[in-house]
């Protein structure tokens, strides 16, 4: 078969049959994502217990979502968590990836070991770590459920442990793609190791940094299972009037708790919170993408 004939052979059938290959994926995406998404937005303007009984009420749900103090608390708590975890995960993942690409012995074994925590589901991780933390904290007569700061740092340790390995793999791929010629040229020009790292290596792995910071930020905001299993919002601050603030409740858990509480109309409020949550995460994600993309080096 010569080249021309080969191209024709693939070209026409592919064009003719492409719908057959794309169709199922598009249909699944539409059924499983686009339609529920549109329905979700509609429901955020409704009062409902069951979806089929939804009654349109306008912006009322958004008003009560914004008026909800616990939602505000969850937002700031989540923002703080996302930033701290984003920085720690990325710095540590990059450091490990850098060390493991320096020709260390058994580096493949280490890569596997570091990646492994990522294979365990969030709920399981949450329960396992709550036992570990309490095993330690019980020596000091306290528990992860008693102090907000333990809950916060506990969750940070948990997600670092879980996600560093995953980010590390992405960084390793990026680091291996940095051209040897460039590194050699830097060496010949007399650049120190530090200079090489900051002036040559890091600008060249910017695409990996973009994707890892994006994942880190959105994962931080979307975190749910680990939050539920580790502290479920405890400890609460019991206000003098009898209401309470769940000090370690993040946004996703706040939405979940709102949805499944038996207050009338809380489902609609939760739905409105979810839409606000989507806009927030999508907006932040896009902003961050635009920001780091600018810093990528075009080769």
């Amino acid at each position, binding site marked *: 078969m010569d080249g021309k004939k080969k191209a024709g*052979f693939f070209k026409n*059938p592919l064009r003719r*049959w492409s719908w*057959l*290959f794309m*169709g*199922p994926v598009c*249909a*699944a995406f539409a*059924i499983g994502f686009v339609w529920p998404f549109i329905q979700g937005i509609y429901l955020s303007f409704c009062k409902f*217990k*069951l*979806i*089929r009984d939804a009654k349109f009420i306008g912006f009322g749900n958004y008003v009560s979502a914004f008026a909800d103090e616990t939602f505000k608390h969850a937002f700031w708590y989540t923002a703080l968590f996302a930033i701290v975890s984003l920085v720690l995960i990325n710095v540590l993942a990059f450091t490990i990836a850098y060390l493991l690409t320096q020709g260390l012995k058994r580096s493949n074994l280490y890569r596997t070991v570091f990646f492994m925590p990522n294979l365990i589901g969030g709920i399981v991780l949450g329960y396992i770590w*709550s*036992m570990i933390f*309490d095993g330690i904290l*019980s020596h000091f*007569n*306290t*528990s*992860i*459920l*008693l102090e907000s700061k333990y809950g916060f740092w506990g969750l940070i340790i948990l997600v670092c442990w879980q996600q560093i390995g995953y980010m590390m793999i992405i960084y390793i791929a990026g680091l291996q793609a940095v051209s040897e010629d460039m590194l050699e040229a830097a060496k010949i020009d007399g650049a120190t190791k530090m200079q090489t790292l900051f002036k040559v290596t890091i600008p060249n792995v910017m695409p990996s940094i973009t994707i890892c910071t994006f994942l880190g930020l959105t994962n931080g905001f979307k975190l749910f299972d680990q939050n539920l299993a580790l502290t*479920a*919002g*405890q*400890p*609460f601050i*019991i*206000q*003098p*009037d*009898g*209401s*309470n603030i*769940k000090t370690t409740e993040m946004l996703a858990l706040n939405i979940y*708790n709102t949805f*499944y*509480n*038996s*207050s*009338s*109309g*809380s*489902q609609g409020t939760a739905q409105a919170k979810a839409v606000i949550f989507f806009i927030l995460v999508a907006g932040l994600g896009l902003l961050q993408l635009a920001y780091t993309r600018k810093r990528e080096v075009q080769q």
Partner: protein
Amino acid sequence: MKNLKKVLAVLLAMIMVIGLAACSSGGGGGDSSSETGSVYWLNFKPELDETAQQLAKMYTEKTGVAVKVVTAASGTYGQTLTSEMDKSAAPTLFVITNQSMVKEWGDYAMDLTGTAIANELNTDGFNLYDENGKLCSIGYCYECYGIIVNPDLIEAAGHSMDEITNFAGLKAVAEDIHARADELGFDAFSSSDMDGSSSWRFTGHMANLEYFYEERDDGGWSEQPASIKGTYMDNFKNLYDLCINNSLTAPTDLANGGHDAENEFKTGKAAFFVNGSWEYAAVSETIPNATMIPYYCGVAGEEKAGLNCGTENCWAVNDNASDADKQATIDFMVWLVSDPEAAGLMVEQLGVLPYKNAPASKNGFLADADRYNASGCYVMDWATNYQPNVDEYRAALVSALNKYNADQSAANWAEVVTAFVDGWAVQYQKANQ
């Protein structure tokens, strides 16, 4: 070659399409039985699951009517019900546990007045009505809770059950056992874990003593009160403190749970176990003479107290189900409480069935409840069923109790009282906006 590739491509595409179609058709089955009707029972008691599945199978074999039983995982009944009720094949038989759930789900419940299952009942005592007098759900079993005691251990410690007739007696025995725990080889109370699998024993059950006595002072509650006064918080504290401070597990270790209180009691490591009649089957395996005593807490005249009797187990039939399904569901319910074999299994698992044709129960704890009644003691009814916005209310109480367990200061107890008393009003407001 060319044809082969084409065939392969079409084949692969077909597989994908068929796979997708198979996924989407998974949930829509069951049309064939629409004429005779079918039953979908959403059960909320994990302990009952095994028996319920067995009963469903028996009924299908006998009558050919399809019965599906789904049991919600512990503590997630509300979530499961919300999502299941939205499906096209929604539960036909579900559980409305209390007055606050009647408010939430009453609209979806069929009026059971005059139905075959309502006519089988031997008491109206456990039925739940909405504000218009519609019979939304009917009790299918009857339970009691209190403090389960191992009389052998009480005697081994040199005491007798006769000493325990009020809080002072209970306190003396429990504190003595705890003080000599090393020498005796067992302790007074089994662990009072505050994790989700155990905290309800305190935030739901033990809390009832406060609600009950307050309700009694008010001359009985007929609907959910908007607020409570907390008159008996000191009595709740008496019993709660006794429980956590004279236990196998230090109060500071309770927050995250992980102690198996049932097993501690069953294996003779503890003499007291705060729980209910549903534990009888498990407990009597090793301690056949285990008995249940009331929540003695220092209230005047409590020598005449009985056990906490009532139920959360009330069946409702989905009003949106087809007539055939409703009929099939009611037939199934009647079979469950009247067929000798089926009702026998139900009684064995659940205790007393308040139905005319149900066999008598062999549950020792319910026999204890009857014994108290017969000797003229007052029944502590389940005022706890009025708790507003239950999950939220109890979660705050758990958090406050955790703090108190770690440091039993007056300030921390004040927070428990706030969560208990003021929290009620806050959650009532939220639920009735």
